[in-house]
């Protein structure tokens, strides 16, 4: 089956005053329809930049390389206009900040109706009615009344539901959810993630879920990509990342004793700092922080190596058991 999204060797560089710096370096993964792939990693490792690159929403100072395919279509080869028409229709994105992601000047219903009018050519009225149905689908009670309300009249969780309704209104093949629950309180977080799962089952949309919360990965994702300093350091099936983490960074993230049944683990903080992307040292980028590092690590840059079906890590010592 053609993956909903196939990312191969994605690179993103920014031209800045200090020079060119590579925020994403050779990221590869793919998601099948109806599946969730989680991307985990510390702040600044390039998660949002990667998602924006897939959507084609990066600012002008960004250069994107590699190969991006949405249901087989080459995103980087098409015209910006053709790509724009896919946004909101075949691929959609929701953001970390539900409080500010909706336009304060328009009511919720109209903001959803706008997408439907644009991509499905519905009339104003038909689009609005469809928007109410979309709100209903994201389990917003009293959808007709809510549709007429403005963002400031809605709670954070409600706004994120509106964003989801908007993103899924045109039944996209791909939904990128960039930390969709970080700004919400815990019970609402669980509801939103549950909702995404249900909608995924109903619509067959593939989801790329960016998160800080490893507990989320365990419950909601079929696959995980662990990113460190712009690269994937480990990719694995959702469960395997807990049962046999192979990369020292993943192990660090999981803390001392990862337990699937235990309390939900936020990313444990790891000592040390990320290397300056402008002056990347030779060898493994994690070496300065790695408790397992050996002399070889500062010389040879480990490539992502397949260890088991669907499980790869970029560490000279992997698989760890063998070391």
């Amino acid at each position, binding site marked *: 089956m053609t993956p909903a999204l196939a990312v191969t060797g994605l690179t993103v560089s920014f031209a800045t005053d200090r020079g060119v710096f590579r925020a994403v370096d050779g990221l590869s993964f793919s998601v099948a329809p109806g599946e969730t792939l989680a991307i985990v990693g510390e702040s600044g490792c390039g998660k949002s930049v990667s998602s924006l690159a897939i*959507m084609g*929403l990066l600012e002008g100072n960004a250069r994107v390389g590699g190969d991006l395919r949405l249901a087989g279509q080459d995103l980087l080869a098409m015209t910006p206009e053709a790509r*724009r*028409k*896919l*946004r*909101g*229709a075949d691929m*959609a*994105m929701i*953001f970390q*900040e539900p409080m*500010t*992601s*909706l*336009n*304060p*000047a*328009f*009511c919720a219903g109209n903001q959803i109706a*706008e*997408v439907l009018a*644009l*991509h499905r050519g519905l009339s104003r009225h038909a689009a609005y009615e469809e928007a109410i149905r979309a709100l209903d689908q994201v389990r917003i009670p009293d959808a007709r009344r809510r549709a007429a309300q*403005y963002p*400031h009249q809605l709670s954070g969780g409600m706004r994120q539901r509106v*964003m989801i309704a*908007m*993103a899924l209104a045109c039944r996209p093949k791909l939904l990128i959810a960039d930390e969709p629950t970080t700004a919400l309180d815990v019970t609402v977080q669980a509801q939103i993630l549950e909702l995404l799962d249900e909608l995924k089952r109903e619509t067959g949309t593939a989801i790329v879920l960016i998160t800080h919360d490893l507990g989320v990965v365990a419950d909601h994702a079929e696959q995980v990509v662990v990113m460190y300093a712009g690269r994937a350091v480990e990719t694995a099936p959702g469960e395997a990342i807990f049962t046999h983490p192979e990369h020292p960074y993943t192990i660090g993230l999981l803390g001392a004793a990862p337990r699937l049944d235990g309390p939900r683990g936020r990313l444990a903080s790891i000592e040390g700092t990320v290397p300056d992307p402008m002056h990347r040292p030779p060898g493994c980028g994690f070496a300065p922080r790695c408790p397992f590092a050996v002399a070889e690590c500062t010389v040879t840059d480990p490539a992502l190596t397949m260890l088991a079906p669907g499980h790869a890590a970029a560490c000279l010592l992997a698989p760890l058991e063998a070391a």
Partner: protein
Amino acid sequence: MIGWLLRRLAQIIPTLLILSVMIFGLQQLMPGDPALILAGEERGDPVVLAQIRAELLLDRPIAEQYFVWVSKVVQGDFGFSWRIRMPVSQLILEKLPVTFQLATMAFVIAIVIGVPLGILSAVRRDTPTDWLANAVALAGISTPNFWLGIMMILFFSVNLGWLPPSGYVPLTEDWRASLATTIMPAFVLGSGIAGVLMRHTRAAMMTAMAQDYVRTARAKGMAEGVVVLKHAFRNALIPVVTLGAIEFGRLLAGAVLTEQIFTIPGFGKLIVDAVFNRDYPVVQGVVLATALIFVVLSLVADLLYMAINPRLRQA
């Protein structure tokens, strides 16, 4: 909403009262005795002077003069011009349409130039388009009106002979001639405001374009024009409307210098003549009318905010 409107209208009364006291008080500071000016040839005759003073209540205490004036104004009587022997209200009603026409034209010119230029330079920020737009705005702001007015007369009236150099034809009489007499002063007035509007629009648009909801609009696949003109501009309008209301109010208060240069018989000319002639009832009436216009305009601006900004609509 109705309650808000009533409260807002009620605020107008103390505002105008304070203003009326200020108008009256400041007027006492004007040098020159109005009786002397009005007496003209007979200014040497103490009997005539005393008679004029008695007639105009100038021999009464200031407080009494004030209360007589205010109680009449409250009844809608702005008094008679001492000089022209016409009711002040009639003078105001005669000049107001002239000034209103000029102000509206100037305002339209300012918006048509300033707002699109502001949007363009925000969207193309730090490009030659932006620099050029900023240079145009700066030129508009910093060119003195009297100089621009004179240059325009020299060029379009004297050199090319396209437009009349001065005078005014009412719209109702002959609209083409009316536009011909007002287009230059309107441009002179509008160009400065266009510059200010451009700057404000640019700043407001830059703020709006950096907001998360703009990224959302792009993620929805909206064309860039829709993102800019609908999603961002709608939110950038709020500060622009504030400024617009103030500038329009200032235009309605009369453009003294510009009206003088183009000999347009509007508010500006009326008040200058009245001040020189110490024609107090006219000065008081015009200033009060201007203040009232300001107050009403700020109310209109507030109503506009509510239309633009749903957060303000619930109160």
